[in-house]
């Protein structure tokens, strides 16, 4: 009686629910079992060749392949068993949103952790390392200073033999004063005139 009543009542709108067909259920489970078998066979094959022949048949692609097969399985569970194929709308948005944010989470964390050594070595020398290098360079300069002082770098030319030399030097000083400014000229002139 009650069922007869609800059939015509707008409040009991359950009649609109999608009832999954038996064929869809059996087809979905077959695909899922097949994909499970596939991923197990591929995994065992890879292990067999790696252990016995030291051949990596998938190499770096073993993780993407496993994830791809698992994703296809997850798609079939979500689309048919969970009814997202017929739900659509907000439920699908919530589910797809969680996957999108998971991918953001994963990729940005990987961008940080995956390349730490690579970029630190090439682009960023730590500050304390730079300071250490500066201190070393200063100590080296100090250590070498006596040997520089021992050898006079410039011998004053004999003005008796080369009278032109002093005028040439004055000319050089004049040229220097033109660029260096007044103070520099005054300081430079004192030793050369003696």
């Amino acid at each position: 009686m009650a069922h007869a009543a609800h059939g015509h009542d707008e409040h009991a709108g359950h009649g609109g629910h999608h009832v999954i067909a038996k064929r869809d259920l059996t087809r979905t489970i077959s695909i899922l079992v097949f994909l499970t078998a596939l991923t197990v066979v591929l995994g065992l094959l890879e292990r067999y060749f790696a252990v016995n022949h030291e051949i990596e048949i998938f190499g770096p692609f073993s993780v993407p392949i496993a994830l791809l097969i698992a994703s296809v399985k997850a798609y079939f569970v979500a689309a048919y068993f969970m009814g997202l194929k017929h739900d659509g709308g907000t439920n699908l948005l919530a589910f797809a949103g969680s996957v999108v944010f998971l991918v953001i989470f994963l990729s940005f964390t990987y961008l940080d952790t995956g390349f730490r050594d690579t970029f630190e070595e090439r682009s960023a020398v730590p500050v304390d390392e730079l300071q250490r290098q500066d201190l070393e360079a200063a100590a080296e300069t100090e250590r070498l200073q006596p040997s520089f002082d021992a050898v006079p770098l410039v011998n004053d030319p004999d003005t008796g033999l080369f009278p032109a030399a002093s005028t040439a030097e004055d000319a050089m000083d004049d040229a220097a004063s033109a660029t260096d400014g007044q103070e520099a000229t005054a300081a430079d002139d004192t030793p050369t005139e003696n």
Partner: protein
Amino acid sequence: MASPAPTTADPNAHEAHGHDGDGHHGDGHHGDVMLRGHDGQLHPANLQHHFISAEQQFESAKLGMWLFLVTEILLFGGMFVAYAIYRSWYPDLFDQASLELDTAWGAFNTLVLLGSSLSVAWAIRAAQMDNRKLLVRLLWLTVMLAGVFMVVKYFEYTHKFEKGIFPGQYFKLAEGTPTIAELTAGTAVLPGFADATAEGAESEAATPSLEETEAAIAEAAGEHGETHAGEKGHGEKGPIFSNPRAGIFFSIYYVMTGIHGLHVIIGIIAISILAVKAQRGRYSSVYYTPVENVGLYWHVVDIIWIFLFPLMYLI
């Protein structure tokens, strides 16, 4: 909140209403699927007053469940991110560790969970078709398959405990293998830090740099792995037992499969309650929201295992 008078109803509704005088606030047990509301019209017994229709109530409950499932996906997502990072750092560790996990039992458990997903999906179909007997059977079948999954998991765990496979620092490495703690003792993690605190070359020589420690760990992992693969019958064999980092993988393994197992146990409890209530005739094509929502939860538990199985056991 005066109860509507059943006497004003038409004969059909009166019969459906029966002796229950609670209006549509009653829980509608034992086949009372339609009750007369304040407006004098028939309402499904489970319709709460703040919803327009049973359809709207059903969709709202389902969306709420989906939002909960989103948090579940992100909960496990965080652990999958940890897995991904450590795998990218130590790919050899994950190759060695997957050899310790029994692929056959893992595959068996995958099929068991897929089967339980099918039985739950079929149970919802049975509820929609008002096939109570099939609904109850399929719900109990789901509980049984979930129980099989947990029993297999129990034997997998105990087998590992016997071999000394514990998470983190409790992992029992083969004799002579240095632990990470020993290898990293006194390492200057920040290169300049040791210089700044204790100046001079002597502290530099005493404190191994990060690179030196890395090299020592790599040597320990590689060298012992080779020598141990040859000798058999001495302690535990397998390269993982001489990898100082073995505990890292098994921390991830135990936490991920453990929290997944916890979800399976919660699912067993929830589905058992559903089965008992279904036996009492609480669910029909008019009202089966709990069956639908617990079914969604169970499928997510299945999907998580679909990802866990190949990542842990196969590669």
